[in-house]
């Protein structure tokens, strides 16, 4: 049968399944594949390779084609707040950033504002030692706002270039914990109305559609200026980033690709889209 003037439906369904499998989500996947149906270039004898190429371009239309990496320039100290739900890799990501900042010759201060979870401070202390960063901490059960207050003062008096604030994992559905986060931001703003200069929401690549709810509620509570997606060294594809870029305007800064200090990369849209189809 000639397919002149029509797109191969079976192939389109297969492509939709690849997207769904990658956690792009059923709605965004359908939208991307429907665009192919409307695309003149996709008709005729367009084979799988051609269609995948067009699909990738459709995804890049959503993700943007330029990297929008983290920059720590300008304000001193440059204050970065790191937030997200439990276990996504916030503390480890801070360790990686501290390593990078050391390589860039910037003095870094880590803030142990997770005063809740067992051994959270000890975990961050190890990263401070590994990367030569300073650390500000208080006793167990201290108020996170109070730790941040101390840190902002210390950063100024120690002339720190960059401050990285580690917060406790929290589910976005817990109103009191989201209020605690807002309070942390207020404390920081008291010291510098422009701070935090970057607020990173750390997402786990294995998380499915719930990442959308996380992004929405976290960015309603605090001024999220960047996304980090960790654990892309696993088999999860992190396609939810496409759905997130479609719904929100938050730049994707970094991807985590392992547990070591060097295991991160700037987010490069084209590499991400290529990896999704591998």
């Amino acid at each position, binding site marked *: 049968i000639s397919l002149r003037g029509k797109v191969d439906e079976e192939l389109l369904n297969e492509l939709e399944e690849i997207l769904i499998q990658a956690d792009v989500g059923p709605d965004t996947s359908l939208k991307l594949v429907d665009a192919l149906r409307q695309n003149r270039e996709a008709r005729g004898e367009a084979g799988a390779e051609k269609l995948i190429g067009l699909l990738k371009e459709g995804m890049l239309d959503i993700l943007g084609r330029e990297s929008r990496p983290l920059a720590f320039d300008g304000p001193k100290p440059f204050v970065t707040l790191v937030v997200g739900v439990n276990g996504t890799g916030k503390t480890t990501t801070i360790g990686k950033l501290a390593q990078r900042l050391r390589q860039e010759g910037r003095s870094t201060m880590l803030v142990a504002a997770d005063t809740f979870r067992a051994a959270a401070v000890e975990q961050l202390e190890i990263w401070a030692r590994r990367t030569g960063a300073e650390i500000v901490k208080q006793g167990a059960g201290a108020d996170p706002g109070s730790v941040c207050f101390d840190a902002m003062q210390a950063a100024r008096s120690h002339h720190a270039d960059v401050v990285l604030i580690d917060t406790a994992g929290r589910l976005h559905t817990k109103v009191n914990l989201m209020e605690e986060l807002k309070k942390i931001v207020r404390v920081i703003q008291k010291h510098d109305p422009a701070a935090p200069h970057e607020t990173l929401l750390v997402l786990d690549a294995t998380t*499915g*559609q719930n990442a959308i709810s996380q992004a929405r509620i976290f960015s309603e509570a605090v001024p999220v200026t960047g996304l980090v997606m960790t654990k892309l060294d*696993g088999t999860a594809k992190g396609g939810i980033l496409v759905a997130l870029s479609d719904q929100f305007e938050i730049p994707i800064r970094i991807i985590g690709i392992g547990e070591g200090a060097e295991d991160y990369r700037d987010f490069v849209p084209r590499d991400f889209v290529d990896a999704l189809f591998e």
Partner: protein
Amino acid sequence: SLGQRLNGVFKRLRGHGKITETNIREAMHEVRLALLQADVNFKVVKEFVQSVTEKSLGAEVLQSISPGEHVIGLVHRELIELLGARAAAFDLKQGVTNVILLFGLQGSGKTTFAGKLALHCAKKGWKPLLVACDIHRPAAIRQLHVVGEGVGVPAFDLGTDHDPSEITERAKRHAVEQGRDLLIVDTAGRLHIDEVRMDELRKLKRTAEPTFTFLVADAMTGQDAVNSAAKFHEQVGIDGVCLTKQDGDARGGAALSIRKVTGKPIFFAGVGEKPDDLEVFHPDRVASRILG
């Protein structure tokens, strides 16, 4: 919610005479969408929809005055059946040193769950001993000790210079000496595609000879849930699954995917960060959440 969408589908059909096969397929399209939005794996969704479609083509639905209700009832029952209609038996043995081995992907909640399980078993009269076999993550051993202190359960560790198998062997001897009858072994998070870490785990399981081997998985996992669960089961073998972070608003389709691909029961649910935030798994609750 799916219930409302199905009623919408069948309302449009009213006045067009009786329900036909085409109408059922349109309803199944809504079911498929709801399950995918709930993070059920797409292959599991396919099989599920096929099975429910066949059942929906029966007289009961086709001749019903409320077909939407029938279909949603079918879907709900099918979900509960798949999730494990009967509670899984968590029976420890008297007069031996029981061993529960916990593993899973990074950050899934294993260390926290170890504490919860220890408390749960202590309340039932067992004498648990936490065993710190995560020699990789910074401050993991310290974390387990603090967790243990929080539930009044001792933790055994040998620092980070011995491998998990050695640590567990020594822990068993220590348990006998101290009159502990249950070891709860916490391990490092690992990727199912990391050969070195999977070897470590297989070796540990051989040494530990567990009474129960649990995969600890995050309830908000998406399509990847089947990949990791299948690999862990195939390469190490699991007796059951514990699903953490069910206190969020994730629809929890991973429960269905993991259950389908491993055939193993879901024993427990983590429903918070505190030691008593542990529940026996409720299939009906998860089914309702999946259906929104």
